[in-house]
């Protein structure tokens, strides 16, 4: 096995001002990834600045103007996506909700990924007791219904954003833990790991320099899809009445609140649903692009200008 180490790419991007330009031109080479990055930047900006400017409009109900249909500019451009069940502009609501949504989804995904993969690395690499006990921990978490966990945590604490992150993060730990462990079980038997060990590399070095880079692509794939999963899980919790509650808003909550109107005012849950889909899609395109860029064997595709797809 030729080591598929990310080191060369990583060092290259550290080379100074030229590196950014290289990265941008590589990005430009993949038009879809480019669009994805632009979309994600917009979402991030909305998440940071949206609540500051739009909080006011999104909290004023106007019952007589409820469920206003989309693409009608007579009420102002904020109503281009239509009005919600209380007559508030959907576009503004989606922008404001981006903040909570991103905090919950990113918080839960990042936390579960870090904790899960760390435990998975230990469980996979260790031949001792940790290798036996940690997977059983995953078993227990997997069989503990997430809904019950949500009820317990949110009943005793408040249904606040932070607690929701805890609940969702815990329930997502097993998938990272088990995937990492499974991969490590195999990688640790590979030639280059054995070689590194024989050459006296420290465990830390083997795990972080040799094993983690190989596992990372799979974990990123799962994490980007998990983003959608977490947003939707949060939506169903809200629907069951144990998630985030108004006046706080998230895309998931908007989707679940729009659900009864699915057949009469489709736009209520369509737009926030679309926001979730586009975010997931963008993250995935970005992670596929990163995978190509960080892989010396595939990078040529982009350097060739992305014209040829082998």
């Amino acid at each position, binding site marked *: 096995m030729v080591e598929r180490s990310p080191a060369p790419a990583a060092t290259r991007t550290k080379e100074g001002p030229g590196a950014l330009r290289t990265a941008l031109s590589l990005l430009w080479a993949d038009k879809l990834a480019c669009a994805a990055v632009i979309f994600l930047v917009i979402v991030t900006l909305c998440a940071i600045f949206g609540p500051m400017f739009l909080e006011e409009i999104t909290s004023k109900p106007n*019952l007589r103007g*409820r469920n206003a249909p989309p693409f009608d500019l007579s009420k102002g451009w904020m109503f281009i996506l239509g009005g919600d069940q*209380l007559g508030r502009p959907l576009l503004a609501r989606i922008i404001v909700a981006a903040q909570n949504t991103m905090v919950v989804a990113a918080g839960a995904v990042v936390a579960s990924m870090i904790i899960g993969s760390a435990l998975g690395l230990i469980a996979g690499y260790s031949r001792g007791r940790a290798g036996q006990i940690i997977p059983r921990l995953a078993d227990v978490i997997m069989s503990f219904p997430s809904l019950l966990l949500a009820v317990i945590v949110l009943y005793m604490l408040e249904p606040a954003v932070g607690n929701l992150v805890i609940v969702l993060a815990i329930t997502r730990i097993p998938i990272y833990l088990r995937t990492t462990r499974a991969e490590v079980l195999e990688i640790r038997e590979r030639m280059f790991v054995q070689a590194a060990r024989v050459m006296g590399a420290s465990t830390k070095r083997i795990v972080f320099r040799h094993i983690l880079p190989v596992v990372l692509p799979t974990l990123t794939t799962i994490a980007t899809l998990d983003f959608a999963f977490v947003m939707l899980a949060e939506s169903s919790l809200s629907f069951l009445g144990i998630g985030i509650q*108004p*006046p706080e808003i998230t895309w998931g909550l908007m989707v679940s*609140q729009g659900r*009864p109107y*699915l*057949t*009469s005012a489709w736009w209520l849950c369509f737009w926030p649903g679309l926001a979730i889909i586009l975010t997931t899609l963008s993250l995935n395109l970005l992670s596929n692009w990163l995978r190509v860029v960080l892989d010396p064997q595939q990078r040529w595709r982009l350097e060739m200008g992305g014209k040829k797809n082998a």
Partner: protein
Amino acid sequence: MKLRTYLQGTALALVAALPAYAQDSTVTVVLSEELDILDPCESSRSNVGRVVLQNITETMTELDPDEGLMPRLATEWEDMGDGTWRFHLREGVKFHDGSALDAEDVAHTLVRIKSEDIVCEIGAKFFGGIDLTTEVVDDTTIDITADPAQPILPLLMSTVTITPAEAPLDGHMEEPMGTGPYVFDEYRRGQDITLSSNPDYWGETPEVTGATYVFRTDSAVRAAMVQTGEADIAPNIALQDATNPDTDFSYSNSETVYTRLDTTMAPLDDVRVRQALNHAVDREAFIGTILADGTELATGMTPPSTIGYNKDLQPYAYDPDKAKALIEEAKADGVPVDTEITVVGRINNFANVLETMEALTSMWREVGFNVDLQMVEVAEWLEHYSKPFPEDRGPEMVQAMHDNANGDPVFSMYFKYASEGLQSGVQDPKLDDMIAEATAATGDERAEDWSEVFSYIHEQAFDVMLFHMVGFSRVNERLDFTPSIKTNSELQLEQISFN
């Protein structure tokens, strides 16, 4: 998204589906929740009642929304004084197992609904704190004594489903049994319940010869099932699914939505603050928007058809300026009007409860109240709604929906307004006396007394009274059936006929 087009196209599908079912004299009813229990003594729960009440088991008396109290298993009754009533039973009535209905069965039923080993809902809901003793005079005559005396005992008996003397006192019945026009066949848990008509029924033989009950949680699915012909009646669908005027009926469903104020806590102990809360709400704006057309503004806890409902009362007008003025006035007298008030709403309590609460909260904020909305699930909600209230609470307003289809305010008033009432936020000795007086009164005096109670509560703005709700049913066009106020708690198959 061509959903709209699809929906319009469905008229065709409906027509196509009809002939296949037209010959069939059984009906399929799609309910919103699975039944966890089928015991007749739980039939005051609406989900059990829709299957069991008056179909499988019958009551001594029956309340007709238009005609008043009617005989059913009892043919007549008279007040013997001292809290005792004598009931004469219908002759020739048989239970489904063939045994004849007699006074012993009634006596046993009354013991059973109060049994400590079952804790039936009928007993807990309607006979809490009432001791019942019976004396069997002969096979078809029974004296029932209530302590304390109940002037409306015959009305109370319209809630009690009569079961045979063999029904166990220490557990639920495996299969519901009674005297009704339908016999229980089978309950395939999670799937369906089937009933078939009772050949030995004492009354007229109904047109519907059998029924199947299925369960779907989602309102859109229930509506779709009637549309496709998979079901005949969906007793309860959401406003936004009631889109076809030919099959969808709205009916007043005896539920009243209000916000209970904790009047023992500042600033809610000040009548001006409470009136300001009432004036701040634009009630009309809800109707035809998030709540259905036909929803009525409420001035009292019970439906307008209840005796003593005070029809002269006017809902508090929407007047934000007046609300602000009242707040100012209270503030000038040192009432802490800026204190944060928590609004507690109950999740999934009725369709659009969340929207309703969000809108209410913003209306209160608009006039300057410092309110904070908390939507909680039922278990947590109950901790705020029922006594004992949390020790460390601040001033609270609790949204609730109350159902009283029983025709008399007594089923509501003590619980909701008396100082000792379990869900009462009021501590007012004058009101306590008024309620006690009305409870003991009879005849016209009773109606008058209740009317005064309604008027006093309204004047004092003890709560923010909101709406009398309507429900929606979808009924297949092959049936001749019009839902009424009782459809919320029962669905009598014998009242259904075919077109």
